[in-house]
């Protein structure tokens, strides 16, 4: 039986400062992250002791220097939020990791809440800059000059499913899901074939099939084995091949179909004849073909389009859920998956309300037609970038959403609530509530631990190796019967 697909996303934002010739991304990121203020005054460390980004899922440990900042730097670069998220500086980008959720609808809510938190901090930080300058942030993945920054999805998996099994089935799925996960990009980069417009921001950057690296020679499947949970029982599949999506519909389908596929892998429900001969080549072939008609070479000699392959996965998914008592969100994912593949088979441009790369392409084409522009024009490049602009009044996705020109799947009220409310059904609830209730005593946090510094007592670390424990149902009683952190620690021991 597949285990529940606890999930979350990590989004790195593009950052620049308008009218600042001396723009320094790192100091701007530090300013940005620290401009976001919550009610609590806590100075909370990110607990790097629990992290191991150099462990490889294929069973070895890679040599390398593990990054551990000093205490002051740690606090300046890391913010753990009352909604259970982490907002921090990663290299030269602001990054938002949403709290753990149990379903894709909540994922949309929390990823979108992240956008609003980052935008709030942008406004605050801009106030601290000289007049005339402004921090600008983009939820995209490329500067179109060969530099990419990430959008990572995380899915909890059963450790008993071998990494080899995952790779075997996931590779083709990830290459072909681009037809509905792409955020769209004008042109190509990183020595890929020239093109006018492609489905994804990231395909040009993938150079190998399976590896540990995420920054150079990027792999389609990343082997980082850092479960942030009981490593005897779980793995955290770290999917680095996706784009940052603006469309709620796209986020829901992207992660919903992927989570379902991973459950099918755990349950051995996938056929084995969809392996691609050359996934690294195919990922670019799919991305560079807005007609979605190009055939890919399979290992078994057959040729199929990405949409045909996705149709096979959908059929297997339908079979998989038959007779199972599936939840409403999964049902919705299947309906959307069906709808999207149907449109892609007829004419991808039918998806100009649902799927990011099509929404953006239709927008650009309308603009080009009326203005007499071509794909090489600077204004077209600007449209591409500004689609991802976080400012509600300037971002083109936001403009379309405001006019009801894109499909929504969650409400603004749900998103706003998630700015300060953790999900109720994962350990993020306990993390967020501890920050709300005992901010002065929370000493350090990581995904799978929280530690308390109470008076002169030694630091006490509470381990949270089970992502589904620490939910409201589990800990509400404990929290209400613990007015202080001291009570909490005592009650936990009892």
């Amino acid at each position: 039986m597949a285990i529940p697909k606890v999930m979350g996303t990590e989004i790195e934002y593009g950052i620049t400062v308008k009218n600042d010739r001396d723009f320094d991304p790192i100091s701007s990121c530090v300013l940005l992250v620290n401009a976001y203020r919550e009610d609590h005054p806590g100075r909370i460390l990110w607990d790097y002791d629990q992290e191991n980004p150099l462990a490889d899922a294929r069973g070895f440990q890679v040599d390398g220097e593990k990054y551990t900042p000093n205490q002051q730097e740690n606090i300046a670069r890391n913010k753990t939020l009352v909604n259970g998220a982490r907002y921090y500086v990663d290299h030269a980008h602001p990054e938002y990791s949403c709290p753990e959720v149990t379903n894709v609808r909540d994922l949309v809510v929390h990823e979108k809440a992240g956008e609003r938190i980052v935008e709030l901090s942008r406004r605050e930080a801009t106030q601290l800059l000289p007049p005339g300058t402004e921090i600008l942030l983009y939820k995209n993945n490329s500067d179109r000059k060969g530099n990419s920054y990430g959008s990572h999805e995380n899915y909890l998996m059963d450790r008993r499913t071998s990494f080899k099994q995952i790779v075997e089935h996931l590779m083709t799925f990830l290459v072909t899901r681009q037809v509905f996960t792409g955020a769209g990009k004008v042109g190509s980069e990183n020595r890929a074939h020239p093109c006018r417009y492609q489905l994804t921001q990231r395909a040009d950057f993938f150079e190998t099939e399976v590896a540990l690296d995420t920054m150079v020679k990027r792999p389609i499947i990343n082997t980082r084995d850092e479960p942030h949970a009981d490593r005897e029982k779980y793995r955290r599949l770290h999917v680095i091949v996706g784009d940052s999506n603006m469309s709620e519909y796209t986020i829901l389908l992207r992660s919903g179909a992927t989570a379902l596929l991973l459950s099918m892998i755990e349950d051995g429900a996938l056929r084995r004849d969809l392996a691609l001969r050359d996934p690294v080549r195919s990922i670019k072939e799919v991305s560079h073909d807005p007609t979605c008609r190009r055939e890919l070479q399979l290992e078994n000699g057959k040729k199929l389009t990405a949409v045909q392959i996705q149709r096979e996965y959908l059929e297997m998914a339908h079979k998989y859920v038959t007779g199972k008592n599936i939840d409403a969100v999964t049902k919705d994912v299947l309906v959307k998956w069906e709808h999207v593949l149907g449109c892609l088979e007829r004419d991808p441009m039918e998806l100009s309300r649902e799927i990011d790369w099509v929404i953006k392409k239709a927008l650009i084409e309308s603009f080009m037609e009326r203005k007499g522009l071509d794909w090489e024009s600077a204004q077209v490049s600007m449209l591409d970038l500004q689609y991802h602009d976080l400012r509600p009044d300037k971002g083109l996705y936001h403009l379309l959403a405001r006019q009801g020109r894109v499909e929504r799947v969650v409400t603004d009220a749900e998103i706003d609530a998630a700015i300060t409310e953790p999900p109720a059904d994962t350990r993020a609830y306990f993390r967020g509530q501890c920050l709300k209730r005992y901010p002065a005593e929370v000493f350090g946090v990581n995904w799978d631990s929280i530690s308390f510094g109470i008076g002169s007592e030694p630091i006490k670390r509470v381990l949270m190796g089970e992502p589904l424990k620490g939910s409201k149902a589990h800990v509400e009683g404990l929290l209400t019967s613990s007015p202080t952190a001291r009570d909490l620690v005592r009650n936990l021991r009892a």
Partner: protein
Amino acid sequence: MADTKQTQKPKKGGDGEGSGSGESGQKLAKKGEALKEEMDALVDEIDEVLEENAEEFVKNYVQRGGE
């Protein structure tokens, strides 16, 4: 933001309006005209918010690789 042709088409699987197959040519022309005006308005609105000096802006947008 779809062009005229796309937005006229009935929405499949969604909750869009029903098909316009029974409509007269005159009605369709009117609808087409309205859609065209709507698109023109959208393009104007984009024009207003689109970053000025696009060429320089896009050229200067350089990021360090991340992840």
